C-alpha cells in the first residue's frame, strides 16, 4: 500500500473511532426508554456498520473492540466491559457474515447486529450471574433489538450512500 493511502486510511479510522467514542458518551448520558438492563438505542452501531460497509471487516472489528475497551474504562465499569464485549463480538461476527453472504441490506445487517448484541449480553449475564433465568428478558430484548437495529440501519444506510463520494 502506498504511504499516502495508508495515512488516509489511518486518519479515516481514527476519525471513525473518535465518532464511536462520542456516540458511546452520548448514549451513556441518555436515559433508556425501557428500564430493562441491556435495552438501548445502540448509536455506536451507526459507526460500526458504516465502517463495515465502507472499509471492510478488519476495520470494523478494530473500531468496535477499541470502542468497547475505552468506553468501558471511561464511562462504565468492569461488569459493563464484559457485557459490551460479549455483545460486540457476537454482533460483529453475525454482521460480517451477513454482509459477506450479501443476504441483507444495511437495515437487515443492523437488525441482526442489534439482536445479536442483546443475545451476547444475555449469554454473558448467564455466565456472570450463573442463572439461565436471565433468558426471561429474551422476548423484550428481541423486540427492542429489532426496532433499534432497524432505525440505526436506516441511518447507517443513508450515511454510507452519502459518503460514497468521499471515496474512503
Amino acid at each position, binding site marked *: 500500500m502506498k504511504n499516502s493511502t495508508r495515512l488516509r486510511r489511518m486518519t479515516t479510522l481514527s476519525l471513525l473511532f473518535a465518532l464511536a467514542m462520542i456516540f458511546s458518551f452520548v448514549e451513556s448520558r441518555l436515559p*433508556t426508554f425501557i428500564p430493562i438492563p441491556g435495552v438501548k438505542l445502540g448509536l455506536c452501531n451507526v459507526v460500526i456498520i458504516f465502517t463495515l460497509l465502507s472499509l471492510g471487516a478488519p476495520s470494523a472489528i478494530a473500531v468496535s473492540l477499541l470502542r468497547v475497551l475505552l468506553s468501558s474504562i471511561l464511562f462504565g*465499569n468492569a461488569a459493563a466491559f464484559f457485557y459490551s464485549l460479549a455483545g460486540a463480538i457476537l454482533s460483529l461476527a453475525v454482521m460480517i457474515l451477513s454482509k459477506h453472504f450479501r443476504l441483507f441490506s444495511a437495515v437487515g445487517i443492523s437488525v441482526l447486529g442489534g439482536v445479536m448484541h442483546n443475545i451476547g449480553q444475555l449469554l454473558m449475564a448467564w455466565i456472570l*450471574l450463573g442463572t439461565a433465568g436471565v433468558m426471561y428478558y429474551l422476548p423484550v430484548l428481541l423486540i427492542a433489538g429489532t426496532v433499534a437495529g432497524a432505525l440505526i440501519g436506516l441511518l447507517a444506510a443513508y450515511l454510507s450512500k452519502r459518503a460514497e463520494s468521499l471515496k474512503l
Partner: protein
Amino acid sequence: MRTRRDLILILSLLAIGLLLFLLLRLTAREGERVAVILENTTVAEYPLNVDGEFPLLGGKNTLVIENGEAYIKDSQCPDHTCERTGRISKVRERIVCLPHRLTVKVV
C-alpha cells in the same frame, strides 16, 4: 430483493419476540414470595403478603413490599435501572441490578 429479505427478517424477529412475550405473560400467576439472589445464591426470601422495607447488601438497595408487590426504592448504583423497573408480583417477574449482581425474583 435484499430489502424484501430485510422486511422478512424484521417481521419474523418481532413475531418470535411477541410470541415468547405473550407466552410468558399468559402463563404468569401471582407469586407468594420474592427471593433475593446475589450472583447465583438465594440470600433471603420475603413473603409478598407482609408489607415492609428491607435493606439489601448492607443498605446499597432497599427492597419494599407493599400490597403484595415488590419494588426497589433506593439503589446506590450508577444506572438506577432496578428502581425504574417498578413493581413485580407475578411468578418469574424480576428486578435486576447488574452493577450489584443482584436479582429480586418472584417465586
